[in-house]
């Protein structure tokens, strides 16, 4: 019996996600037709921008294998946002806020990468640890209080809407996903990521710098979380120490739902993007239906278990 998994058609995953998405929208339409307005679409896309960036980081870390996972993404988002705001309070010129958030994210991600590649700590454990450290630090530094004082020019960008589509979505999320897709499909780097994700030993034998690549990918995940932190600042107008809450769960769900194999080496970013849209639509719908946030988290969690189960079963059947 040939148990080797063929590359799954990304088209299949996209079709399934689109179908699910339509079902969610139809159910919402029946339950609460008033939900649908341009405003709702804008809100969904605004939330999507943040989750999309974080989920992309999660996806590439998982794709590169070696039991890769980044549970600290939510912590990185919270702490980068707080770090940027605090740096401004300490006298950083406001035009340097965007690079400050990104650099903070990169440093926190690189720290994860060092734990995983240099100290050989299991990614699940390493990033669980840094998740507590980063989110705890964000709370400790602020005493839990939101940090106000986001420069107004940043708000203009962050809250700008261009024919119903939020400007950050247009200027960050879409270009970043396009670049990620191109790099994964059309460059040698992309092939290396797939190769090391699927069979690390053979990747090492052919001379792919596996550890360096992995360190870079964890750092990139941090950069993307830092960018998400910046967008949250530019949108909400203040730095909240718990802004990244539950992002690890949601990004993981989006990556899995989008067809990234949990063991690495399989999947693409298009599916992740579609999965983010589906998840945010679902969450927004639940919010509009006045479903308790505790339940929302529960539903996302259940979805994650379901996707992993489906992945597992499809593996056994093939």
């Amino acid at each position, binding site marked *: 019996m040939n148990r*080797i998994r063929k590359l799954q058609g990304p088209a299949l995953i996209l079709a399934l996600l689109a179908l699910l998405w339509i079902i969610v929208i139809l159910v919402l339409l029946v339950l609460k037709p008033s939900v649908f307005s341009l405003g709702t679409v804008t809100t969904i896309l605004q939330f999507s921008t943040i989750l999309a960036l974080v989920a992309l980081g999660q996806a590439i870390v998982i794709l590169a294998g070696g039991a890769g996972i980044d549970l600290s993404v939510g912590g990185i988002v919270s702490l980068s946002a707080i770090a940027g705001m605090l740096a401004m309070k300490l006298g950083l010129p406001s035009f340097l806020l965007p690079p400050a958030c990104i650099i903070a994210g990169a440093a926190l991600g690189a720290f994860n990468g060092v734990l995983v590649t240099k100290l050989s700590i299991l990614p699940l454990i390493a990033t669980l640890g840094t998740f507590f450290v980063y989110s705890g630090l964000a709370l400790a530094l602020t005493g839990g209080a939101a940090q106000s004082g986001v420069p107004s020019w940043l708000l203009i960008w962050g809250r700008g809407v261009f024919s119903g589509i939020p400007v950050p979505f247009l200027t960050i999320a879409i270009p970043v996903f396009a670049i990620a897709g191109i790099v994964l499909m*059309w460059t*040698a780097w992309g*092939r290396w990521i797939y190769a090391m994700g*699927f*069979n690390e030993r*053979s990747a090492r034998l052919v001379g792919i710098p596996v550890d360096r690549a992995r360190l870079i990918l964890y750092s990139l995940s941090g950069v993307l979380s830092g960018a998400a932190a910046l967008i949250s600042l530019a949108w909400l107008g203040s730095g909240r120490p718990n802004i990244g809450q539950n992002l690890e769960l949601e990004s993981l769900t989006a990556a899995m739902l989008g067809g990234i194999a949990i063991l690495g080496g399989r999947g693409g970013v298009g599916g992740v993007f579609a999965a983010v849209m589906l998840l945010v639509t679902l969450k927004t719908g639940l919010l509009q239906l006045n479903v308790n946030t505790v339940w929302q988290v529960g539903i996302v969690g259940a979805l994650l278990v379901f996707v992993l189960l489906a992945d597992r079963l499809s593996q056994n059947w093939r």
Partner: protein
Amino acid sequence: MTAPFLVAKGIAKRFGALTALSGVDLEIRSGEVLALLGDNGAGKSTFIKILAGAHPASDGELVIEGVPVAFSSPKDAAAAGIATIFQELALSENLSISENVFLGRELKRSVLGVPFLRRADMRQRVDGLLKELDAHISDPEAPVGSLSGGQRQAVAICRALNLNARLVIMDEPTAALAVAETRKVLALTRRLAERGCAVVLISHNISEVFEVADRIVVFRRGRKVAERLRAETNPEEIVSFITGAHPDVRALEKAN
């Protein structure tokens, strides 16, 4: 006879107190298939790991085309033109044939420092190699996960060819294959030698060795106990070398 591609002189390998190899002298010639035979634990794999740069030798020297070399990693050996096909092959099943052949040394076009793949060129080159090997694989873009064991060996051999390897080492390439696939891999092995490569083949299958090898070397307990041209020996003699029943081996072992 031409000058040998590689000469091993007095190679020894000790793992702590255990002597896995001692005093092995061997010449490896281009265009020739050299078979290494020997019982389990005779030191065959240890020897090729030294050739492949995976182990340093405890003693002795390797000379490639008259120049002494010292390998500290498989990369050094590859740079010297030695490609090793390990039994587990080291292919990425999620990538295509041509991606595997070029993995780690892709043909690329750099745009702003980003290495974009030249897929068409890679495909064409692999197509040529597969044709040359007569490997019966029509589509270089097929995922390696969909290939049979023999076809995978062909891809691994393609990879070695693409590295411009001068010496290809194969550790039990047919151990996991059925009859028809074994035939194909043996034919590929011959074709490699005809292209002017030196080939070292490890096998436990004597009839297979007699079919494909030009020269046969037998290892026993870490020593080279026999070296014969195929035309000058027969399976019975080789078996007696392997088991130690041959008078020469007895004499050798008594002397030590």
